[in-house]
């Protein structure tokens, strides 16, 4: 059977913020660029980003990229690479102004400048006092960004392959990436997209958790593709959680609810935060609240049949206050928890929100992997946005840096791709047929499978394993068990069966293919989390606690290094953190405290 081949200069996988930004760079350089995407570009998960984009424009008060850099390094708990962080913070103003020129409707000051709001963790003078740094378009920043960049791409003649799913990277014997295999949903047909370079911008993978704020499309497709092609995944133990997602659904309940007087209660109705944070109580920081909730659940004080959630109670508030100040939350609670919070408390659990790790890149957006201990670019492969790990977020991400990440590294990866194609590739390299065969075999296996496992059941087992064993607060014994459980799940993934074998828009087939990617992300996360014997940023272990030698359980002497998980052998390697910025002095290690 011949698989149809289409040729482009570059193929971008994913049309969220990072993919669209990179595509502008490529198409405006005159290269033929295809962007393939599972959903229409403006329906990418970037649409859910409301907070804004950080840039030290200084429009409202004095600000400086170096202060932003300091906040980012501190937020990362010193695991972020300081060269990439300097690069991102220095380039923030440029990419935000460019976006404005693309037509982004930023909120404005009376003088017509971009209006900037305060945001948690944004400080001036190296952590001294809060500063207004976040640039937003009302509460629709992500949405407005996607629209502005999509229009710019239309103008630049970017070719969109909408409702296509990429399956595998095509990497030749020399390690060069020369395209992808992809399925067109409308025909169900497999294609080869032959390219001089490929850029992955597939976003996050929050669907590995049972409770996640991520949309269904966030299945880590780029990470699965990279892992299957022999490329390691970096720092996958680091996931940011939000304390209050609606239990079971994952939909976010904003922190404003606790600000208005919401109280967290366990199964016996106790206001348990009084025991964990006697002063701040329910208004303690995200980490503290999340860990207290998990401790309550783990010690058997959770609510419901499975004792697996706690309650967020606002029934003591005046219904008029709820209707006036929290109408959206009441609506969410009724729709996704079946509970009117005026009468009954809302079931909530800590919920996975953002993946700090990903496909290892440098600040130029080149995918890198160590060769004899030194990072070398994988020729022809680039990555940007949440799927990539530059690493600017390190062990925890600073709010509003996710949109900045996708603008800065979307642009830099695009620039690097253009340079590579212009200087290094004269013609399309030959296609590696064995790599194409891998995709065909995956599809053939799925069509032929009998007596296999149901995709829904396997996915739920995977999500529950991640939720129970690799959640916001980690326990040494649970991590070990989790690693062994996920290897069992992997066996089920290899034998999934779909009853519907139709070709056109077969969601069942697509979900089975997504599961192949989710399982790589889950293995990487559990193995990396089990491996890292310290607490740092979002990775918090019960056996690595605060001590004079290890503040907050962070052990710089042994663990100031990035994890690299390899699919082959399910093994870990480590590489040093880049502590040397590009032009300024290193931001020296100290205890992370707010």
């Amino acid at each position, binding site marked *: 059977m011949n698989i149809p081949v289409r040729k482009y200069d570059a193929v971008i996988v994913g049309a969220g913020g990072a993919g669209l930004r990179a595509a502008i760079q490529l198409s405006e350089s005159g290269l033929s660029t295809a962007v393939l995407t599972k959903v229409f570009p403006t329906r990418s998960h970037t649409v859910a980003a409301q907070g804004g984009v950080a840039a030290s424009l200084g429009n409202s008060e004095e600000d400086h990229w170096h202060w932003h850099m300091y906040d980012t390094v501190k937020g990362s708990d010193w695991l972020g690479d300081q060269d990439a962080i300097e690069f991102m913070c220095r380039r923030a103003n440029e990419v935000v102004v460019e976006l404005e020129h693309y037509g982004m409707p930023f909120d404005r000051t009376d003088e017509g400048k971009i209006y900037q709001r305060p945001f948690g963790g944004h400080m001036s003078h190296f952590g001294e006092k809060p500063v207004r740094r976040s640039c937003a378009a009302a509460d629709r920043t*992500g949405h407005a960004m996607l629209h502005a960049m999509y229009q710019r791409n239309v103008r630049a003649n970017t070719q969109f392959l909408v409702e296509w799913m990429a399956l595998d990277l095509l990497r030749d014997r020399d390690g060069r990436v020369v395209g992808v295999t992809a399925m067109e949903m409308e025909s169900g047909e497999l294609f080869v997209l032959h390219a001089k370079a490929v850029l992955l911008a597939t976003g996050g993978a929050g669907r590995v958790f049972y409770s996640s704020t991520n949309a269904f499309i966030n299945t880590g497709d780029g990470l699965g593709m990279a892992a299957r092609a022999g490329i390691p995944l970096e720092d996958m133990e680091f996931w940011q959680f939000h304390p209050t997602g609606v239990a079971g659904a994952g939909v976010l309940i904003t922190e404003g609810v606790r600000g208005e007087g919401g109280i967290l209660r366990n199964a016996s109705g106790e206001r348990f935060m009084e025991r964990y944070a006697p002063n701040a109580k329910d208004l303690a920081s995200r980490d503290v609240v999340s860990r207290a909730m998990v401790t309550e659940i783990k010690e058997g004080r959770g609510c419901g049949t499975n004792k697996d959630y706690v309650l967020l109670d606002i029934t003591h508030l005046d219904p008029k206050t709820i209707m006036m100040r929290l109408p959206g939350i009441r609506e969410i609670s009724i729709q996704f928890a*079946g509970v009117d919070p005026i009468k009954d408390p809302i079931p909530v659990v800590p919920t996975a929100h953002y993946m700090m790790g990903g496909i290892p890149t440098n600040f130029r957006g080149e995918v890198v992997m160590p060769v004899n201990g030194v990072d070398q670019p994988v020729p022809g492969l680039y990555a940007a946005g949440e799927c990539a790990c530059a690493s600017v977020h390190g062990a925890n991400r600073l709010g509003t840096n996710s949109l900045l990440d996708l603008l800065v590294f979307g642009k830099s990866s695009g620039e690097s791709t253009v340079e590579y194609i212009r200087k290094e590739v004269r013609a399309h390299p030959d296609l590696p047929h064995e790599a194409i065969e891998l995709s065909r075999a995956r599809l053939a296996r799925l069509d032929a499978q009998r007596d296999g496992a149901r995709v829904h059941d396997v996915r739920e087992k995977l999500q529950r394993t991640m939720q129970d064993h690799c959640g916001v607060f980690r326990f040494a014994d649970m991590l070990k068990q989790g690693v062994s459980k996920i290897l069992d799940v992997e066996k089920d993934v290899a034998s999934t069966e779909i009853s519907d074998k139709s070709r056109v828009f077969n969601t069942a087939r697509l979900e089975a293919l997504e599961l192949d990617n989710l399982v790589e992300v889950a293995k990487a996360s559990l193995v990396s989390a089990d491996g890292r014997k310290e607490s740092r940023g979002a990775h918090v272990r019960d056996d690595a606690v605060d001590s004079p030698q290890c503040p907050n359980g962070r052990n710089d002497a042994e663990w100031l290094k990035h994890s690299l998980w390899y699919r082959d052998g399910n093994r870990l390697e480590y590489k040093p953190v880049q502590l040397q910025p590009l032009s300024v002095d290193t931001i020296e290690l100290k205890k992370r405290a707010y």
Partner: protein
Amino acid sequence: MDAALNRLRWQCRRGMLELDLLLTAYFDARGASWSLAEREQFARLLDYDDTELWALLNGQTQSGDVGEQGLVERVRAQSPVRGSEVSISYPRGTS
């Protein structure tokens, strides 16, 4: 399911989890029994941008079209979860 209906199911996948949950739950409950007109009406609803659709489905805004507003109300009424048993709220896949 036929191809056109399959396509609508895929297009219930959006950028926001809230929409994924609501649209998928409604589709799974009703999609198979739709008339052609009902399908077309649902397809038109899916044409909205995510933020506009969410504003409709969480009651912030109302559609000027009476028929469409009726559909919005039906989607809203088909919440993905009912009662306090939360473990059923994760939408079931198609496979």
